[in-house]
């Protein structure tokens, strides 16, 4: 039977995957072809901005709707003709037939963690088993001692993909050495970093890979019970995990006496409730134990005293999705990718001002330039790359001048940012760096749990200073205070949230101090983003008097008759930018510093 794959990842579902599938079934039925094709609803195919996707014999169709599907069935399946207009295109506009093999976005990728994404139906365990699923678990249980499993992972050099990059094998070894009759294995799926969504994609697209990784880890450390802590914002991931756990139990990959051995392991799902700090491991444990999600001092580390005081290993989703692959293919194979200190691959989430957004899995050690220009297709609309933000609110910005640095845990730390969970937000010349820093600080202020003073008070004060600067009310002393506070908060906060919260400020100050000074001294925003420091102006030479801006202006700040040049009353203008969006003649532009209030332009 021939196969047709449809992407049922989160973004494609939101883009109408269900309707596309319905149309496909109907069209196949109409042509009498329904019995000849197997429709497989897969996990995320990666390039979410172009969904919904459909793949027939390696030919990738994108951005589908119901009528497109009907046309493809008629022309491709019946007529044998590839339908060009629904093929994926390169940023230059060239169509690509077998996009997953030929499109730049996919060519440089190495699929270990995302090996099954876009290929298997995550709701069907047989699909996973067919692709060597649970073979690693079987091998481990029947052929390997726990120490051998740990040794294998240690040799592979796999490091925690949640952000900190602690060696996974070492963590397991610490837990294994603890003498305790009860131990726990926890999967941290509380992916909260703005800009990161690889864990969601893996949970939704290949949940069994995570379960298999957890079972192997549990065997290695001697745990019988496990928890997956998922955030409530990911309902589809929760649903698919539930299905996967149920199926795995039925097939004896989980539960009592797994695969007829003495090993038993059970997993339960725990659902978060909108607290970012719960991604921090001690806060996560508090939450599982039914307390407020607040962190505590380490040591003792969870491997010594974790859930209910018992040794507990906490691994991130992506880390766990690597495990079965390493066991099956061996540590040597894994080390073929990546660098000496950071072997393997990393899944990055490309977002922001980049042509191809989505998930990409690449060997560590790749440069940002390759990631953004070769894979991401560069910055859209002919704009210039200004900086790249990695690691979400705990990370920092890397200026365009440093994008040839190979990405691994150490190099990013040296630049002042962190790998974090792998979110990569591309910023162009229209983005203000002070605004970016302020943005992340606002996030941290909201998410600080309030337990320790440096984080609770320090981040708030830093935010207030940034807010003043973006309004043109900052002083040069403010910048000094900001820097001083940043160091104090970084060094004295209780947990990772506070310790990394100043990174956006410190890196923007390090690489873009002139922008801060411009805001303070000249009261200008060089990127023309900070509203209090700009004015919208109509160019009389370009304005045709079409009245489009006048109609859309929410505060009636624009005056002018039909076919005559319009003017903006600066005293009424709230600088929402609606007029600029609707103008078809490029007649509206921004100026900084702002015009004096009483001037009409």
């Amino acid at each position: 039977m021939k196969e047709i794959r449809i992407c049922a990842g989160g973004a494609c579902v939101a883009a109408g995957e269900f309707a596309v599938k319905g149309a496909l079934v109907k069209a196949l039925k109409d042509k009498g072809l329904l019995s000849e094709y197997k429709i497989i609803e897969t996990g995320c195919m990666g390039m979410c901005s172009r969904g919904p996707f459909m793949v027939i014999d390696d030919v990738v169709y994108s951005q589908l709707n119901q009528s497109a599907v009907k046309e493809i069935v008629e022309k491709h399946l019946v007529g044998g003709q590839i339908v060009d207009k629904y093929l994926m295109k390169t940023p230059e506009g060239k169509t690509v037939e077998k996009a997953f093999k030929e499109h730049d976005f996919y060519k440089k990728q190495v699929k270990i963690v995302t090996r099954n994404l876009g290929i298997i139906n995550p709701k069907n365990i047989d699909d996973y088993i067919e692709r060597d699923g649970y073979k690693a678990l079987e091998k481990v249980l029947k052929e390997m001692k726990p120490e051998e499993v740990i040794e294998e992972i240690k040799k592979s050099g796999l490091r925690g993909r949640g952000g900190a990059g602690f060696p996974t094998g070492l963590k397991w070894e610490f837990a294994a050495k603890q003498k305790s009759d009860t131990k726990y294995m926890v999967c941290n799926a509380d992916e909260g970093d703005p800009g990161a969504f690889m864990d969601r994609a893996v949970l939704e697209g290949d949940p069994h890979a995570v379960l298999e990784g957890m079972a192997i880890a549990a065997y290695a450390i001697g745990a019988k019970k496990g928890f997956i802590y998922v955030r409530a914002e990911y309902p589809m991931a929760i649903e698919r995990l539930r299905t996967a756990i149920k199926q795995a139990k039925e097939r004896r990959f989980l539960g009592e006496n797994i695969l007829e051995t003495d090993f038993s392991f059970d997993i339960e799902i725990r659902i978060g409730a909108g607290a970012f700090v719960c991604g921090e491991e001690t806060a996560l444990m508090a939450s599982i134990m039914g307390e407020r999600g607040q962190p505590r001092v380490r040591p003792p580390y969870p491997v010594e005293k974790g859930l209910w005081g018992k040794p507990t290993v906490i691994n991130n989703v992506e880390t766990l999705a690597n495990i079965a692959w390493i066991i099956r293919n061996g540590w040597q194979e894994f080390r073929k990718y990546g660098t000496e200190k950071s072997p393997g691959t990393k899944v990055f989430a490309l977002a922001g001002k980049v042509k191809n957004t989505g998930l990409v899995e690449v060997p560590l050690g790749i440069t940002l330039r390759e990631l953004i220009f070769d894979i991401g297709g560069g910055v859209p609309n002919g704009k210039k790359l200004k900086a790249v933000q990695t690691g979400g609110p705990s990370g920092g910005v890397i200026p365009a001048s440093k994008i040839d640095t190979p990405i691994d845990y150490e190099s990013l730390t040296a630049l002042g940012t962190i790998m974090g969970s792998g979110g990569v937000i591309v910023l162009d010349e229209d983005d203000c760096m002070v605004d970016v820093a302020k943005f992340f600080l606002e996030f941290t202020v909201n998410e600080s749990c309030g337990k320790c003073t440096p984080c609770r008070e320090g981040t708030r004060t830093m935010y207030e200073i940034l807010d003043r600067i973006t309004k043109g009310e900052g002083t040069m002393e403010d910048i000094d205070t900001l820097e001083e506070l940043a160091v104090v908060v970084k060094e004295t906060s209780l947990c990772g949230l506070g310790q990394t919260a100043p990174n956006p400020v410190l890196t923007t100050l390090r690489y873009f101090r002139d922008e801060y000074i411009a805001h303070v001294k000249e009261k200008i925003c060089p990127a023309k983003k900070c509203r209090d420091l700009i004015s919208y102006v109509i160019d009389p030479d370009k304005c045709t008097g079409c009245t489009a801006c006048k109609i859309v202006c929410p505060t009636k700040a624009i005056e002018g008759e039909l076919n005559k040049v319009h003017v903006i009353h600066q005293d009424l203008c709230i600088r929402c930018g609606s007029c600029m969006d609707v103008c078809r003649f490029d007649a509206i532009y921004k100026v900084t510093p702002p015009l004096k209030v009483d001037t009409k332009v």
Partner: protein
Amino acid sequence: MVEEKVRNALEKAKEKALEEKDYIMEVVRCLHEQFGGYAPPEALELAAQFLEVSPSKLYEIATFYSLYTLRKEAKHVIRVCTSLPCHVAGGREIIETLKKELNIDFGQVTPDGMFKLEEVGCLGRCDTSPNMMVDGTLYKDLTSEKVTAILEAYRKGVIE
């Protein structure tokens, strides 16, 4: 009525217990399901009695986490992303449109009890930003026009 719902919630949560007392979070979550989006203080107290823990244990959870609430406040809760990926993709305008259309600020409820507006850190859909979530449904690639149309659909009951 309240007691029945609390018992249901406890029942549901207990099924998922691997350890004694590891299901308190789950209890609060199940209470929200039972009561339709909130957990009233009297239900928390009753649940605490049944669980033989101090009521403050449940109360602190219901008040610490941003997705939990003690009062039913609005028919639909709108959570709009306020973090950077959405911001650089035009999220500021989306938030303004929402505030203008609903005539409320974050944390407030419209006078007709129809909508509550909340900010959310990240919905994990940064590649299709700006995003917002209404109750459990995600809306992506938003524009001001789309937001207006979505609100209208809820107001008219086209979307329940």
